[in-house]
């Protein structure tokens, strides 16, 4: 019983899975052996294309059974007719009617075979939808032929064929199943189609049946058994067809329900197996994709689902980038992930040149396999392989399921890849936190190695002010080979990348050797220890601001040998961050260099300043020493002459000459002492300043009288004026003498011819306290104008008034020391000298000696 049940279930299953015709061909092949030739290619009706549609297969098989049943039925009638050896016209007419009808049905089927093939191919292309157009016409033809045969047989030939009308009923019944099962039809279409069928099938059948029951026609007599077969054959056939149809539909529905539940459960699990890893924190972001896809495959092969897949593998089709450089480069097929429930299972090799482009089951005893293309935007990006230990009858649902699985795998791949990219970018971002360029370089080469799977990587930077590209860091190369290379902007592809600021990628380098600089590539291959297969250079910076480049060669095994869009994207991101880091550090370096230069300049300037100061000090010291040395003979001469002048016996003429000599010596002494004190003061030396009581009038007159003798300006007159309460001054006599000498000498030098030099003693408001007045002597003279703006400058050492300088109108010789000396001496004495320039008379200059207060 169990055997029977098993047989029936199997046959029922096969009725909706495999064309009877195909099974017959296979049986023939088995019987006749392999030498039978390719019989299937001759008579193949392409019914295997229907195998994805259980309903379609079932309908197809049902029609085949109708033909076969018809043949058996007619053969039985013929045999019975022969067995009775009767001349019954009823028998003859029956056979004469039904055989031609059957042959007519077969002939029409054969005539429509071309259309059937075409329709089946279209059906396959349309991806398992649209059964309607395939079998619709057969239902009409069958119904029409049987109805016609019934009417002709019953009313014209008068033979008992009325039960044939049951076949029309069965035809209608199956047709209803067929139409409803066709997913392209909505309920309106179904009703509409059925309403069209009714006039041709149901109505004539009912009329015939009505006639059969109500009118007692005298049919031609036929033998009893013949009549019974003729009556019950169609009825039983109709009943059988109805039962088979209902059973099959129920079976299919049950299977479909179970399948849908399984499908849903598996798809949910698969989706979960994408989302779960995405939520997890991962340490090694490099394996995210393969781990994630492996997890998907594990779920697909899980024993919990009923598909029976035992092993699975996913391949990624890496599209070679075909630009003007990388031409004629083949796509690369990369193993992405695999899983097998049986650890001993050996995955077969894949023919990279003959990839499956559609869901294609391969029959086999154990390792039957299904290849499912993985697509993105209608482009194949890879495929999924499934291995299972059963014969494959790929249903439309299973195919749909596998299509969904492939889409989920693609989605998972995209998501895992996105996560990997995100994590990679996070790591790349870490470069921004590097505290030194060396650290940034080191991290960059590590990232290139990790994420671009580069067998060799290097970092080259432009040298300032030259075309040279300096090798900063490298990984995976024997450096001694690389050091032989003189990389330059513009030389080879590397130089082109640095020059144009363009990313350059060359896959299949050995077929594009003409693009490379032979020497450079030779050393790179020497350093790498192998031939370069794939090559990529990424500029750091853009066109006019390229700082250098990152170069990677040869993707390592385990991944695609070609660099991909993803690699390009990641490399660009890395380069852009390196640019930021380099900019930052170069900027810092520039600042540091500028600071260093500034420091060096400052140091040099300081050194120069020190030198200058030392020189100035040396000169000051020389001047001081010289002044000292001059003073000794000067004093000696003054002493000697003064001794002579003490002799009352001297002739007046000699006395006058000696006095003149002495005056000159005193002038010199005033000058030298002035310079000595001012210079010593300037050199930082503390000067001894005595506080002598000085009667201004006495001293002033003595000096200008003396200078009148020694000077060469006899045209000038001196006027001395003193206020009534002008005090006896407290000041270093020696110093004051020098001050007066300097100012009077200055006045006599530049005063207009015949003018008067006025020396006025009075009081001035203190420069520091406007409420205090202190004694002051004004030396007034008329001469070349001193500009208002020169009021202070005129006291600077070596400064000469514009009007009297070598380029001035009143050119006069001089070195610009006198006023500087005078002011320094007064400062040393606690006073000051200022210059008043008259608004009314620009030629009037008034030097004011401010004496210190009490």
């Amino acid at each position, binding site marked *: 019983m169990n055997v029977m049940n098993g047989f029936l279930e199997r046959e029922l299953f096969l009725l909706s899975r495999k064309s009877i015709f195909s099974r017959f061909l296979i049986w023939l092949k088995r019987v006749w052996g392999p030498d039978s030739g390719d019989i299937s290619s001759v008579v193949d009706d392409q019914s295997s294309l229907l195998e994805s549609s259980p309903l379609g297969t079932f309908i197809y098989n049902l029609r085949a059974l109708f033909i076969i049943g018809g043949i058996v039925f007619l053969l039985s009638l013929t045999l019975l007719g022969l067995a009775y050896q009767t001349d019954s016209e009823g028998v003859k007419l029956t056979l004469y009617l039904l055989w031609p009808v059957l042959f007519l049905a077969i002939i029409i089927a054969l005539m429509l075979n071309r259309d059937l093939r075409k329709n089946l191919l279209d059906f396959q292309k349309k991806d398992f939808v649209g059964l309607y157009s395939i079998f619709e016409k057969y239902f009409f033809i069958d119904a029409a032929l049987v109805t016609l045969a019934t009417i002709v047989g019953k009313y014209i030939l008068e033979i008992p064929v009325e039960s044939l009308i049951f076949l029309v009923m069965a035809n209608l019944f199956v047709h209803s199943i067929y139409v409803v099962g066709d997913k392209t039809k909505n309920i309106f279409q179904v009703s509409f189609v059925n309403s069209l069928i009714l006039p041709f099938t149901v109505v004539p059948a009912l009329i015939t049946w009505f006639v059969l029951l109500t009118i007692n026609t005298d049919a031609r007599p036929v033998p009893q058994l013949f009549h019974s077969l003729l009556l019950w054959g169609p009825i039983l056939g109709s009943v059988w067809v109805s039962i088979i149809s209902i059973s099959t539909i129920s079976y299919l529905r049950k299977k479909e329900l179970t399948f849908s539940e399984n499908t849903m459960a598996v798809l949910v699990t698969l989706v979960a197996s994408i989302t779960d890893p995405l939520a997890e924190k991962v340490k090694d972001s490099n394996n995210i994709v393969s781990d994630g896809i492996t997890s998907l495959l594990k779920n697909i092969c899980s024993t919990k689902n009923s598909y029976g897949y035992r092993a699975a593998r996913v391949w990624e089709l890496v599209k070679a980038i075909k630009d003007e450089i990388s031409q004629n480069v083949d796509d690369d097929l990369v193993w992405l992930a695999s899983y097998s429930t049986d650890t001993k299972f050996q995955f077969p090799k894949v023919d990279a040149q003959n990839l499956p482009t559609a869901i294609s089951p391969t029959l086999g005893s154990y390792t039957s396999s299904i290849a499912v293309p993985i697509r993105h935007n209608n482009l194949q990006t890879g495929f999924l392989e499934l291995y299972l230990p059963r014969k494959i009858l790929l249903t439309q649902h299973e195919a749909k399921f596998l299509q969904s699985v492939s889409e989920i795998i693609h989605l998972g791949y995209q998501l895992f890849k996105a996560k990997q990219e995100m994590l990679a970018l996070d790591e790349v971002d870490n470069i921004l936190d590097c505290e030194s360029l060396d650290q940034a370089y080191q991290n960059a080469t590590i990232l290139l190695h990790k994420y671009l799977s580069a067998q060799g990587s290097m970092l080259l930077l432009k040298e300032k002010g030259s075309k040279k590209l300096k090798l900063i860091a490298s990984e995976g190369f024997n450096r001694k080979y690389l050091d032989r290379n003189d990389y330059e902007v513009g030389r080879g592809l590397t130089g082109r990348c640095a020059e144009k600021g363009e990313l350059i990628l060359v896959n299949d380098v050995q077929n594009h050797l003409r693009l490379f600089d032979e020497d450079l590539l030779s050393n790179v291959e020497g350093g790498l220890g192998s031939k370069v297969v794939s090559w990529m250079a990424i500029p750091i910076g853009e066109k006019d601001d390229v700082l250098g480049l990152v170069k990677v060669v040869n993707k390592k095994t385990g991944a695609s040998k070609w660099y991909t869009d993803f690699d390009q994207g990641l490399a660009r991101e890395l380069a852009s961050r390196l640019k930021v880091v380099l900019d930052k550090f170069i900027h810092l370096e520039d600042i540091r260099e500028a600071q260093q230069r500034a420091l060096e300049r400052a140091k040099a300037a300081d050194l120069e300043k020190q030198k200058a100061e030392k020189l100035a000090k040396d000169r000051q010291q020389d001047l001081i020493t010289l002044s*000292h040395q001059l*003073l*000794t*003979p000067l*004093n*000696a001469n*003054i*002493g*000697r002459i*003064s*001794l002579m002048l*003490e*002799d*009352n016996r001297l002739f007046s003429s000699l006395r006058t000459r000696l006095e003149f000599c002495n005056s000159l*010596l*005193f002038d010199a*002494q005033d000058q030298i*002492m002035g310079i*000595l*004190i001012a210079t*010593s003061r300037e050199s930082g*030396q*503390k*000067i*001894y300043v*005595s506080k002598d009581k000085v009667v201004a009038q006495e001293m002033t007159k003595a000096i200008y009288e003396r200078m009148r003798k020694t000077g060469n300006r006899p045209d000038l007159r001196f006027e001395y004026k003193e206020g009534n309460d002008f005090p006896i001054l407290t000041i270093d*006599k*020696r110093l004051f003498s020098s001050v007066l000498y300097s100012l009077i000498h200055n006045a006599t030098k530049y005063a207009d011819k015949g003018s008067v030099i006025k020396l006025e003693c009075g009081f001035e408001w203190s420069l520091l306290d406007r409420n205090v007045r202190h004694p002051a002597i004004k030396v007034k003279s008329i001469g070349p104008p001193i500009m208002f703006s020169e009021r202070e400058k005129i006291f600077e050492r070596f400064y000469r008034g514009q009007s009297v300088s070598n380029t001035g109108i009143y050119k006069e010789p001089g070195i610009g020391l006198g006023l500087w000396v005078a002011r320094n001496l007064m400062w040393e004495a606690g006073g000051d000298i200022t210059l008043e320039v008259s608004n009314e008379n620009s030629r009037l200059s008034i030097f004011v000696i401010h004496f210190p207060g009490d």
Partner: protein
Amino acid sequence: MTNENPTRTHKILWIDEDGHILEPYLEFLEANGYKVEMCDNLSKGEKLVQSEKFDLVILDVMITPTEEEEKNAYTTEAADLGMQSGLVFFKRVKSYLEKSKTPLLVLTQRIGLEIRDKFVAEGLPQSAFARKSDLPTVRHVLEKLEEILAGK
């Protein structure tokens, strides 16, 4: 040239290595009743101060030590004191001068305060200094000596 005060005779020790330059001053001072003994080195001056009585000692700050003085540590000590050999001399004879109440006039061509401060630190009053340029003529010198001796 006249002897303006012939009755007064003052014995003066003038220590200066440039005696030939000072000749006019000596002549004028002697004409005015002063007996001036010139001394061109410090050790000799030191001995004279210790052995004889003078009304006034005139000292030039900078006197180059002789070989004998170098042996006598003048140089080393002078170096320690900032090369003012006159200061070394003063330190050595200070007690004799104080004992005999002999005033000291320190003459210098220098205008700096530093030398004076060192002497002041050793107890010499500021008024005992004079710049040579303040006493250019023979009469200036005579007047200065008279001023000191009058205040003695």
